[in-house]
């Protein structure tokens, strides 16, 4: 028993895999247990039914069509958010005036629930790619902006002075000190942005679209097909989890000195 406990504490890949498997298993067991007591299948369906519904979706080809729609939309707008976020963060970090002037506007925009503006975006940009793209961009860009600016400003003054002492140009200070120092910060912003982008895309697809996971969830819930709703939510959860693991790994790789 003690051995198992120690194994789960380890920092290895096998242990991490075992931890994830265990937590998934616990959730499935709990879910199964609760669904025994809640017998109204409109409210809750057991895991096996959800798996069956997912299988049907795959066989029908609906899963693939929805995945293509969602992944292309969220992928392109996520990449655009990251690039735009880094660019804005760079601009804010390089100019104090810009940061002080633009900062309040950005934090106001960041605290507004932009998701609530989804119907407006659709009214402006129509049903389809453009409105999805802009909505995801609006929700996903801010974490990147904030962490980029914070990371660039956090750079160790001592390291900058040492670089200056070696006669480094401002550009060299940026490429050899400030930017590498900010990179792990930026990646943590990107990790948050990915989670937000997934929420953004689903909401965008709720309001106006004819394909995608959000559309599938909405149409399934309108026909009270709870198994299908939960199935697509799980697919989105897996996408979120993979993104989170990926970016966390990159973050750790970029800043190994922070761990010890």
């Amino acid at each position, binding site marked *: 028993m003690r051995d198992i406990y120690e194994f789960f504490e380890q920092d290895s890949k096998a242990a991490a895999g075992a931890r994830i498997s265990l937590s998934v298993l616990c959730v499935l067991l709990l879910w199964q247990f609760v669904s025994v007591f809640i017998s109204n299948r409109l409210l809750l369906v057991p895991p096996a039914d959800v798996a069956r519904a997912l299988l049907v979706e795959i066989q029908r080809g609906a899963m693939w069509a929805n995945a293509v729609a969602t992944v292309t939309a969220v992928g392109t707008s996520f990449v655009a958010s990251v690039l735009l976020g880094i660019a804005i963060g760079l601009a804010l970090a390089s100019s104090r005036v810009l940061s002080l002037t633009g900062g309040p506007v950005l934090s106001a925009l960041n605290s507004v629930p932009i998701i609530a503006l989804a119907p407006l975006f659709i009214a402006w940009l129509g049903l389809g790619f453009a409105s999805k793209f802009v909505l995801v961009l609006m929700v996903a860009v801010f974490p990147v902006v904030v962490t980029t600016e914070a990371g660039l400003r956090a750079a160790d003054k*001592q390291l900058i002075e040492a670089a200056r002492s*070696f006669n480094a140009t401002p550009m060299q200070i940026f490429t050899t000190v400030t930017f590498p120092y900010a990179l792990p910060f930026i990646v943590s912003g990107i990790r948050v942005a990915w989670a937000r982008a997934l929420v953004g895309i689903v909401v965008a697809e709720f309001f106006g679209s004819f394909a995608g996971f959000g559309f599938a969830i909405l149409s399934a819930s309108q026909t009270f097909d709870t198994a299908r709703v939960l199935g697509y939510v799980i697919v989105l959860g897996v996408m979120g989890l993979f993104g989170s693991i990926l970016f966390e790994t990159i973050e750790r790789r970029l800043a190994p000195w922070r761990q010890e």
Partner: protein
Amino acid sequence: MSGDLLRIEKLDKTFDRKGKASVEALRGIDLTIGEGEFVSIVGASGSGKSTLLRIIDGLLLPTAGSVHLDGKAVTRPGTDRAMVFQQDSLLPWKTVIENVAYGLTLAGADWSAAEPVAQRFIDLTGLRGFESNYPHQLSGGMRQRVNVARALAVNPRILLLDEPFASLDAQTREIMQTELLTIWQESRKTVLLITHQIDEAVFLSDTVVVFSARPGTVRSVIPVPIARPRALDVKRQPAFLKIVDQIWNMIEAEVRASMKFNT
């Protein structure tokens, strides 16, 4: 030992602070350092020692007066001077050898040219075998070796050391002092060391410059006529202790004053 390498004349430095009284850090500093000499500056905290070093390095500009290195006026950083900082100033995402080569690559050297030079100073500073380690994997003493190697690698005319061993424990500090002497003897560099450890200054230097505090002025220039090479047992010789005592008497009152000032 031919002539003066560094010449500081009538140097003043005053820091203007927004909305507050300006601070006079240095007043009327005159100092010359000969080629190949090892000179230390000691003084109570607040005597502007580090400020002077930053002015010599070109990181700060003096309010008045001048610094000349080998006849050329110093107005900005350059590879004819190299600084070793008190705090850890290594790039945490670069390996030891990449850190040692940092100054060379900034100056535009290719890796193929920089690497053998970096390797030479890694060997000189006793870092062989740690080339591909990262700074966070090294002890404080090893990290300061990397800092020294990085500074030497750009082949400066003068090495500027800003309390390089202040953050090390007492034993490591003593070891590093003897190693610094060995490195100095092998590389024949001119060295200017800032320290608050009087025995460190006397042990290492040909000349100890004593600063007074607030504003910093040259209070006394004391030669150290102890034969070289020096080993750690020099620190127990009467001649050594006499010089340490002499310097301590000069700055004791100011150290006490600065303690009050800081608390």
